[in-house]
Each structure stands twice: as structure tokens, then as C-alpha cells.
């Protein structure tokens, strides 16, 4: 086996295994920790594809941002001993069926697609290219989504400040 394939198998196994642990764990913070492993392993997959920018974004946003946020909210709301109640068997069966149906749909769609390997070597995407296309409003530009997300973030920040602000009456 080539080392490349070996790495793919390892990373894929980690992702699948910890995804299952995430949804089956009955302790909520453990589930968050397993989710962290899944997200970091996904970043590993991007590193394996030699797309370092996306990998670093994945780690910053998901592992460093969203998981920290999730853990923070769990820290504020739950206790160590707490366990989520066992789910009813009927619900377990139905959700398992839904998950399996979704997986079958995805896998069959992927298998129908004919993937062709190119001989072209993986190229490192230069930071300058990424930066320029992010603020480019011409072809292949992302200026509109960039600005829309900026407005969304601004709105979220204003909302957070309004909620956190002490009211004058009290």
C-alpha cells in the first residue's frame, strides 16, 4: 500500500469512528470532544490533499471557534455527572433508518459519478490569489458574499451588545 492511501484510510477511519461516537455518546461534553476530533481529522484530510489554506481555515473556524463556543455553552449549562436520558427504541430505529437512507443516497450518487484522475500536480494556492479573489467583483470574485457576511457579522455583534448591555432602569 502506498503511504498516501494509508494516510487516507487512517484519516477516514478516524472521521467515521468519531462521528459515530459523537452521536452515540450520552455525555454531552464528551460528544463535543469527539466532534472536535472529527473536525480536526477533516482538516487532516485537507492537509492530505495539500490544500493547506482550507485546512487552516477548518481548524481556526471549527476547532478553534465553533467547538470552543459549544464547549463554553456546555460549561455554563451542565454538570459533570449529567447524562442525557436514553432515547426510546422507536426513535433510535427511525433515526438509524433515516441516517442509513441518507448514507445510501449519498454513496450511490457518488458512485454514479465517473471520477477521472488528472496527472497535474497539486499546486499550492497562493495567499495573494485568495486575497485578491475575495475582494474581486469581476469574474471569479467573491466580493458580494464577503460583504454580505460582513453585514451579517455586524448585525450579530450589535445584537450581542444589545443583549449583554445593562438596562438603565435596573
Amino acid at each position, binding site marked *: 500500500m502506498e*503511504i498516501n492511501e494509508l494516510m487516507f484510510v487512517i484519516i477516514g477511519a478516524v472521521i467515521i469512528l468519531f462521528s459515530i461516537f459523537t452521536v452515540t455518546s450520552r455525555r454531552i461534553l464528551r460528544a463535543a470532544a469527539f466532534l472536535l476530533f472529527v473536525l480536526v481529522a477533516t482538516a487532516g484530510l485537507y492537509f492530505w490533499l495539500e490544500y493547506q489554506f482550507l485546512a487552516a481555515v477548518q481548524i481556526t473556524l471549527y476547532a478553534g471557534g465553533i467547538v*470552543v463556543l459549544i464547549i*463554553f455553552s456546555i460549561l455554563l449549562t451542565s454538570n459533570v455527572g449529567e447524562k442525557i436520558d436514553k432515547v426510546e427504541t422507536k426513535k433510535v430505529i427511525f433515526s438509524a433508518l433515516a441516517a442509513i437512507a441518507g448514507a445510501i443516497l449519498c454513496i450511490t450518487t457518488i458512485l454514479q459519478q465517473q471520477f477521472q484522475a488528472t496527472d497535474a500536480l497539486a499546486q499550492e494556492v497562493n495567499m495573494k490569489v485568495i486575497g485578491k479573489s475575495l475582494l474581486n467583483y469581476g469574474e471569479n470574485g467573491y466580493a458580494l458574499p464577503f460583504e454580505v457576511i460582513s453585514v451579517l457579522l455586524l448585525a450579530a455583534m450589535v445584537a450581542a451588545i444589545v443583549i449583554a448591555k445593562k438596562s438603565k432602569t435596573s
Partner: protein
Amino acid sequence: MAFSIYDLTSFNQWVDKGLNSVMSPLWATITEMAIIGVVFLLFYAVVGLFLVYAERKICGFIQCRVGPNRVGPYGIFQTIADFIKLLMKELVPINKADKFLFNLAPFIIIIASMMALAAIPFAKGIHAIDFNIGIFYILAVSSMGVIGILLAGWSSNNKYSLIGAMRSGAQIVSYELSVGLSILTACIMFGSLQLSTIVESQADCWLIFRGHLPAFIAFLIYMIAATAETNRGPFDLAEAESELTAGFHTEYSGIKFAFFFLAEYMNMFLVASIAATIFWGGWMPLHIGHWTGFNMVMDFIPPAVWYLGKTAVIIWLMMWFKWTFPRLRIDQLLTLEWKYLLPINLLNILVMALVVLMGWHF
């Protein structure tokens, strides 16, 4: 084949060729990975041991004490003795803690700092991974360390630990902003995020001299924010031994406590080496314009010595900082970040962009 301490690329290629000639490429790659892993682990341990000793000596010096002086000459074997003691200590199991997360937390912190360390250029040719987005990678992986602290604080099932973890979460998340923005200020000057390019582009002059005032302000902000990021005094609210006994690692004992301790010093080394690489030119010797003689004398000192020397000076600054200032309160800490550092930083980026645009630099 001739090797020189000034450029180790040929040595690396020689090792690579040698390994590939005796075994298959798969095993050669695996062996290389193992060698690099062992080298980094050794480096990690040695730097950790040395920094603990240095901190105790410097602390003693600042407080007009002698510091460790019993084990070996000038007490240099003190930390090794301490380490052996920590290894032999009993690991106290916590009855109502979440054992899995409790044991996992130290490793997350260690792995985060280890991954970041891999991207640091130590000398010409000693650079484990050189990504196009080097600095972004370092910021990304080092931001995972806070998860370890949060998990440790929560899973200990202890009020002090939880308060420490919450404090450090708020602190690290907000100061990450300043660290990122001050590094961004420096990167405007380089026009690149690749660490090898950054070091090479400082061959004529280090950034802190090239960038005039904005670079100096960025350096100051980086130093303050990085000290806060590593949970070191005067920003050590997460540990605050007089208020929270020891914060998030109250319940840890023996070798698990040593992991946290080691990671703290390693993070300090890491932020110091990032500062040295970005602002002080990494392993690049000090060069001044056309002073050829002077430059050649400086070139005579090996790059690794330059790198370690600069890092040591910055670490010394951080220790000086710790033992001089009293600890901040949590509201003062957040005020400092959000009301002072962040606006100054944003303005500084604009000034830096103007400087680069108008070419007002060397």
C-alpha cells in the same frame, strides 16, 4: 559531502538519500517521520526543563534571592530532580470527575503546541513544515490549546477549576484577536505568510527596524497579547494561585500536572519564537545596509545561535514582565484588550498599510 552549520539543507538531503538507498520509499518516509518526531519531543523536553530553571533563577534574581542552588553547580540539575519527583508521584484519581476528558485534556494542550512548533524555522534547513500559509497555520493550531484548558476545568468537577477555565476561555479568545491583528500588521510588510519567505525578506534589515513606528507598536501589542495568550503573569488569572488555588489544573497531580506545566513553558517558547521570527528576523543575522565587514562578522555566527539568542531575549523580557507587574482583575484584563489594544491595533494596520503603500520604509 561537506556540511556546514550555516546551511543544513545538504545534511537533510544526505539523510534522505541515505535512508532511501537502504529501504523502500514507504519505510524511508515513516523512518523520517519518526526521526523528526523524536527530535521534536527531545527538543520539547529539553526546552521545558531549561525554561523552568531559567524562570526560577530569573525570579530569584528579580526578588533578590539566590534561586535553586543545591542540586549541581548553580542548581542546574534542580529541574531534572523535580521532573523525576513528578514522574514518581501518585496520580490521584478523582472520584466524580469525567475520567476520559480529564485524561484527554493535557494531551490536547500538548498536541496544539507541538503542532505549532513544527512550523517554526529554527535555522536554514531546519524547518519541519514550510507551508504557504505558515503563520496562519500556527495561529490556527495554537488556538486549539484553549479547548484543553476548558475541558480540564470542566471535567475536574471542581468550582475553582471551572472558574479558572472560564476566565482563561474569555481571556484567550479575546487576546487571540490582538495576536492575529498584530501579526497581520507585520505581514502587510512581507506580503507573504510563508515563514521561510518572511525570514529571507529580512536579510537586509529586521522588520522592527524596517517598519519604523507601526512595526514597533505591532511588536509591543504582540508581546502583551501573547503573554496573555500563554496565561502568564500578569495575566495568569486562569491559575491565580492566591484566588483559585491553581485554576484549571487544581485536580491534576504527578505527570499530568507536569504536562500542563511543560505546555505552559512550551507555549511561552512558541510565542517568543514567533515574535523573534516575525519581528526580529528569525535566524537571519543582523545586517546593516552596506556595512559589508560588519555583515560578514555577523554572518559568522551560526543561524541557530541567532535564533535561540533572539528567542531567549524575548523569553527573558516575558519573565521580567511577569515578575514585575501585579496580576490584573478580569474586568481590567478585558478592558485592556477591547478598549485599548484592539482600536490601537486597527489604527496601526492602517498606518502600516500607508507606510507600505507610500514606500516609507527601508
